[in-house]
């Protein structure tokens, strides 16, 4: 048990305390941007199979209309995020680097852009199976960044029962404030989403976990909570990576998720606040996920803040409206610790994109990589007890199989704490990502 927990402060051992940088945007109410002239909707916006397009070139679509259906259970459908005409279905560069199929929609300038919706459905009267199907129909994925299809999380294996669902409102990454705004602005949607999730997984109680740098959220939400204590809200210590699944479960419940197992194996299901708020808003109206709140912040911006943008909005459009004044910048989709850099200004906002971070080249300047001096700082911060120093040295020798078999490489969730503290500037997480990619390739070749 952690010493801090004895004083009533909930947290996990190790981790780091990066500076927050949240003051710039956390008071900005989410505003809308003008619609972009063109929307790029990649078919693969989730972990699992990409959606299958059901529209053709030149077809007119309404905002909210289904344009690609799910390909099996590990897939989610895709909805048009603007009213307009399908320009083409083509390969576009993705944030990962390779090209992927996307539907490109030309926005109708004269359209009122009213959100298309179906008949009202009362979730209280629906069975868990029907709810899982209804969640899949909304096209929902984890909006925290992992893009895991939410309905798959709600489909609990038969041998597990869920006693608690945890709602992740930590937002431990620096700069990000989208979840903070959602917890202040969309309380009723969020609570409805929580009740839908509780019904779908048949859980008696729910805990909202919020980092203690957002205490105004606790004050705002407490009056709305039900009197029977089925939903509670608790503050956890502000620390990175508090918002990681395994860390938050440990902080709130004192339980560890075993290596390689899902949270359901210890009776827990975890959802992001933004995901549940979106479900609470969309599911009763049978609507699809077509827009999300993103934080745009960083250097050389005249109008940083939180913006509600349609999915598929290109980065160049967002930068223009946030009034970017610099020449060069490093663009990161997501937070600075785990986000993906974008190398292309037409990279679209996807379902899992929570922020666009614009960093000055000076802020991201890297010093020379020096040899490991075995200072063990990385061991002291690794939240899952790995040995990043040893793993890093094995990686430079290309001993990727040893890393996986003896040093539990696959448990690493790439939070970046080790790279953050390394005094020799060794890009440890990058080494681990390469190792994981090559190991996956090796396993695939062994199977084939």
């Amino acid at each position, binding site marked *: 048990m952690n010493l801090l927990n004895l004083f009533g402060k909930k947290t996990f051992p190790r981790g780091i305390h990066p500076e927050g940088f949240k003051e710039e945007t956390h008071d900005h109410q989410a505003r809308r941007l003008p619609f972009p002239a063109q929307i790029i909707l990649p078919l693969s916006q989730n972990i699992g199979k990409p959606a299958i397009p059901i529209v053709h070139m030149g077809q007119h679509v309404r905002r909210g209309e289904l344009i690609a259906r799910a390909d099996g259970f590990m897939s989610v459908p895709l909805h048009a995020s603007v009213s307009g005409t399908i320009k083409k279905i083509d*390969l576009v*560069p993705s944030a990962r680097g390779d090209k992927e199929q996307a539907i490109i929609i030309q926005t109708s300038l004269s359209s009122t852009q009213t959100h298309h919706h179906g008949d009202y459905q009362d979730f209280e009267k629906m069975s868990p199976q029907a709810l899982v199907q209804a969640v899949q129909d909304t096209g929902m994925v984890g909006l925290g960044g992992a893009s895991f299809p939410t309905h798959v999380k709600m489909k609990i294996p038969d041998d597990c029962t869920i006693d608690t669902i945890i709602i992740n409102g930590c937002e431990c990454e620096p700069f990000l404030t989208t979840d903070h705004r959602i917890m202040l602005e969309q309380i009723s949607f969020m609570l409805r989403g929580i009740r839908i999730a509780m019904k779908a997984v048949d859980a008696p109680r729910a805990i909202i976990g919020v980092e203690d740098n957002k205490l105004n959220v606790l004050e705002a939400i407490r009056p709305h909570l039900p009197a029977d204590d089925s939903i509670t809200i608790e503050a956890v210590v502000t620390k990175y990576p508090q918002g990681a699944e395994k860390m938050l479960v440990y902080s709130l419940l004192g339980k560890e998720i075993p290596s390689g197992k899902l949270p359901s194996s210890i009776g827990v299901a975890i959802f992001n606040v933004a995901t549940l708020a979106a479900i609470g808003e969309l599911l009763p109206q049978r609507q699809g996920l077509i827009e999300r709140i993103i934080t745009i912040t960083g250097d050389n911006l005249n109008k940083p803040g939180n913006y509600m943008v349609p999915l598929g909005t290109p980065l160049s459009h967002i930068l223009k409206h946030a009034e970017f004044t610099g020449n060069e910048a490093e663009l990161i989709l997501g937070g600075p610790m785990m986000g993906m850099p974008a*190398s*292309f200004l037409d990279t679209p906002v996807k379902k899992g994109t929570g922020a666009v971070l614009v960093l000055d080249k000076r802020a991201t300047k890297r010093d020379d990589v020096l040899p490991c001096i075995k200072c063990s700082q990385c061991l002291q911060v690794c939240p899952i007890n790995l040995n990043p120093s040893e793993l890093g040295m094995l990686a430079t020798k290309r001993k990727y199989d040893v890393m996986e078999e003896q040093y539990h490489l696959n448990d690493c969730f790439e939070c970046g704490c080790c790279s953050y503290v390394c005094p020799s500037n060794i890009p440890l997480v990058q080494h681990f990502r*390469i190792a994981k990619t090559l190991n996956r390739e090796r396993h695939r070749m062994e199977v084939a």
Partner: protein
Amino acid sequence: MVVLGIVLAIILAIANKKLFVYEDPRIDQVDEMLPQAQCGACGVPGCRPFAEAVVNRVKPPSACTVNTPEGNQDIASFMGIDMGETEKVVARLACAGGTHVAYTRAKYQGLQSCQAAAAVSGGGKGCNWGCLGLADCADVCDFDAIFMDEYGLPIVIEDKCTACNDCIVICPKDLFSLQPVSHKLFVACKSLDEGDIAEAECEVACTACEKCVVDAPEGLIEIKNNLAVIDFKKYDEITVDRLPIERCPTGAIVWIDSQLGTTRSSVGKAARQSTRTESLPQA
């Protein structure tokens, strides 16, 4: 204790006789003559298995590409067999987009390794299929057969290349392939983009204009997914000549000769490229 020792000694003595495996003494001798690079280029997993294969007449001595021809002749004489003929196979890079002809849209700053860059937003190069130029292949090559030229493209020294496969495995863009040196016609591009887009990203990209298809013997070259692909099964050393490269507007299809080096067409943009020595500005 003495009794136990005697009993175990007897068991060992019997086991030595009963479980004895006869091994051709020539295997050890051939193994000693091999270069011990353990590279696997011959198609068996190391030098000793290769020695076994030679002694069992499964492989000719010339299948070892690391050894000198004289060394292989020694093995052949020792075994009293013909050295055999194995055509030299070398690794070739299907990309010609160095920094002087290919555009870079973002600067990559992280770990200087192609594998790392490919995982970070594709490395920032305009072309999604092109060489990233961070020298993973030169690093991994045990024979110093690859060096990086001034435009960040790996150059394979054909004499040193043993076709060991290491560069093929490490390249995140799968640009290397093993080709017999007699295959002189080669498409040095992997871009699947449509003509205009491909050419905007790289001046030496294949634009799938089909001129080489028309000029080559029938069926040799085919356009697949906006890229010219040579069917090496139909490749005949005698009938294939330099004609297909002559009208290539970008110089993506090349003629590789061990003595004369690489030649490409001198029409269109290609003429300008041959004189350009500076890197292109970054976007």
